[in-house]
């Protein structure tokens, strides 16, 4: 088990390095000349050259990369070209909005999807199952940002139950902050819970087809007892891996939702950075998100190995 954990952590680190190389490559090599991108096409050749010198862009690729990566490990992701503020600090501030939002959405998703999926599987081929299937098909198809738009219009603008946007910050009051995140979280959770419900339902249905369920019934367990005591235990294992993927999707989703609700999170930072052509900011923000996603994947893999006794014995 320990051997596996060590190996997996090594893979995580290698993946982060590979991802950072990719990000750096896209930002520094693909656009041709980052200085031109940052200054705009109207810039004079002299100012471009000056910027190149200043940023050390004339050095070879790998040198630049190691410079950036080396500082990044120590928490220094460079300085925003536009504002001059340290990127690391900016990102940390923004994370205080994005991460709680993602967690809230994840919690809501799980709270809805697990019961709904199990319920639907238990009442397979009955009207209740059809209802859940149809609802989840609809939920899947709705763009999260559209749901957000509609929710904002109905609940915030018209009914004024919630703020229409913006984030008061955690210092102003815990509940105020949560309130500001509620509608955005619901918008995200709407879609994700539809996806997860379908997944849970199918995982449970697949498990119910397996032989040991029949053995449980042969021992005298009723259908529901067999489902609860044997089925769920097994079905939850593959569902675990999906949870990890869902969290990654949620993080990506926050980027869009923050735009609808004007939340000062990581996503809106990235969007602003694009408009301002602040390549370093985009670089830093992206790699942080990717690292988070890889981290979640690492945690899920290890938990999966812990939970499934067939894998634990290694």
């Amino acid at each position, binding site marked *: 088990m*320990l*051997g*596996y954990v*060590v*190996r997996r952590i*090594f893979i995580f680190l290698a993946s982060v390095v590979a991802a950072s190389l990719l990000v750096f490559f896209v930002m520094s090599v693909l656009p041709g000349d980052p200085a031109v991108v940052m200054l705009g096409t109207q810039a004079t050749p002299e100012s471009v050259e000056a910027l190149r010198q200043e940023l050390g862009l004339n050095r070879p690729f790998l040198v630049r990369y190691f410079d950036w990566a080396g500082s990044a490990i120590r928490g220094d992701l460079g300085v925003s070209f536009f504002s001059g503020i340290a990127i690391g600090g900016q990102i940390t501030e923004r994370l205080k909005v994005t991460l709680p939002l993602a967690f809230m959405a994840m919690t809501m998703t799980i709270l809805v999807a697990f019961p709904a999926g199990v319920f639907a599987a238990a009442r397979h081929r009955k009207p209740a199952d059809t209802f859940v299937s149809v609802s989840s098909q609809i939920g899947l198809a709705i763009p999260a940002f559209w749901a957000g738009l509609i929710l904002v219009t109905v609940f915030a603008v018209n009914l004024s139950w919630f703020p229409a946007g913006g984030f008061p910050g955690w210092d102003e009051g815990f509940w105020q902050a949560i309130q500001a995140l509620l509608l955005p979280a619901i918008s995200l959770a709407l879609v994700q819970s539809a996806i997860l419900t379908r997944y849970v339902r199918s995982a449970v249905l697949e498990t119910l087809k*397996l*032989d*040991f369920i*029949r*053995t*449980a*019934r*042969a*021992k*005298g*367990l*009723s*259908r529901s007892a067999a489902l609860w*005591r*044997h089925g769920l*235990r*097994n079905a939850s*294992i593959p569902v675990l891996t999906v949870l990890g993927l869902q969290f990654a999707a949620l993080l990506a989703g926050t980027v869009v939702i923050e735009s609808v609700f004007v939340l000062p999170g990581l996503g809106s930072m990235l969007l602003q950075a694009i408009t301002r052509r602040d390549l370093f900011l985009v670089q830093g923000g992206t790699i942080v998100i990717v690292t988070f996603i890889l981290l979640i994947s690492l945690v899920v893999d290890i938990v999966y190995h812990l939970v*499934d*006794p*067939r894998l634990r*014995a*290694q």
Partner: protein
Amino acid sequence: MTDTVLQVRDLVVRSAAGTTLVDGISFDLDRRTRTGLIGESGSGKSLTALSIMGLLPEGLTAEGSVILNGRDMLTSPEKQLCAIRGNDVSMVFQEPMTALNPVMRIGQQIAEALRFHQAMSRQDAAERVVDLLTAVRIEEPELRARAFPHQLSGGMRQRAMIAMALACGPDLVIADEPTTALDVTIQAQVLDVLDEQVENFHTALLLITHDLPVVARTTSRVMVMNAGRIVEEGETRAVFSNPTDVDTQALVGSVPPLSRSATVEIEPRQDRDSTEPVISVRNVSRVFPLPRSGFLDERRTVTAVDEITLVVEKGETFGIVGESGSGKSTLARMMIALDIPTEGEIVVNGIDIAETSKHQPLRRQVQMIFQDPMGSLDPRFKVGRIIAEPLRSLRIVGDHRARVTELIDAVELPADSVGRYPHEFSGGQRQRIAIARALAPSPDILIADEPVSALDMSIQTITLDLLAHLKDEYGLTMVFISHDLSVVHEICDRVAVMQRGRLVEEGSVDEVFLNPRTDYTEQLIAAIPRLDGT
């Protein structure tokens, strides 16, 4: 308490589409008796068992009456059925690996039955579990009770299932193909345990299987099912020595000589003359690296084939016999040059298979027939194309169409088969198609890897006859691999016995089977269940 545990009257089971799967059967089971229910697949025997448990799969309907200890299992409310299942009647299933919950400990699964039916405390149940595991001869029962299914061997898992079935002292235990998935030596162990404990717990036993000798060994009465009906029943010995029904006769007739009796002498065969070797295996080993578990661990390996030396002579049928994990399939893959030995040398028809660049001729000269008739034909290709594939691939000149027609004829399939798809054919027919394909490039050597193991008994005989006939007609050399000793004895000239990658014994079929020299071979032969119960 009457003597009758189970009374089945006019049981009919139909599928959702209306097909009749069980066609009106009736029988009684008395207390403490052992009855066998024999039939090939599709005969309806498993459905009968599930009807007795009240566990028919959704979509199937049942009529008639199935009365267990006074209760009708077909009409009683579910709640009552739950109280009966596991308590008055229980079942042992075929595949212990899938029949047990892989993420729950064995002890817990056995205790579940106890705590549910007898309201035992956790403590008492745990003690009882240890008693049960001891009764089924599982060593270190306290330790094993905390194990997960994948940590036990196949035989142990099945014995644990038996323990679970007997836990609440039921009046009837139904065992559905309980040993079919096990090696023959393990099978003997498990049957012994089943025997013992059924006696111990005073239960009645209904043993369902397609394997006649297994029934002969364990039961006193037998019923034979075919196409949903009971076609014959009576005392086991009597039915097997003098079957009256045509289908039963076919079944009994398909049992190979070695499986008929342990005491009656088998005629020794005439030794064939020695001929030159076509396959020469010298000190061959094949070692596989295992995926690394830890990061810094050394690479672990498994030795599938361990220094084997043997020779296959031209024109003979050479058998390779072994239980699972013996390495016989790995050896077969090397003989057909799809894999290279880690050590040693294999020369086939004069070509050293290690020289991959010189392989090409072997692709025509050596052909293989596989075990699974479902998986050995590409479901997307028509039969004619499947058979012609080797001809196309090897760029063999000549009229392919004519050759395919010739082959279809040789394997005794109708001529219009060439335009149809594999799924339109039965298992036995698909094996014939596979044989036709193998014969297409006119090979010299045929390697048959468990070619009949997945087929029904009566079809096995027909297919083996066909193989033997074709081998003679085309003058082939055949390597026949199987775990089934009696089949190997029936059709091979010489045989090699493998265990865990090593060659244990080798010689003519008479030498090895009738006068085994090693303990392992003796064990193997002794473990074979016999039709006369010896």
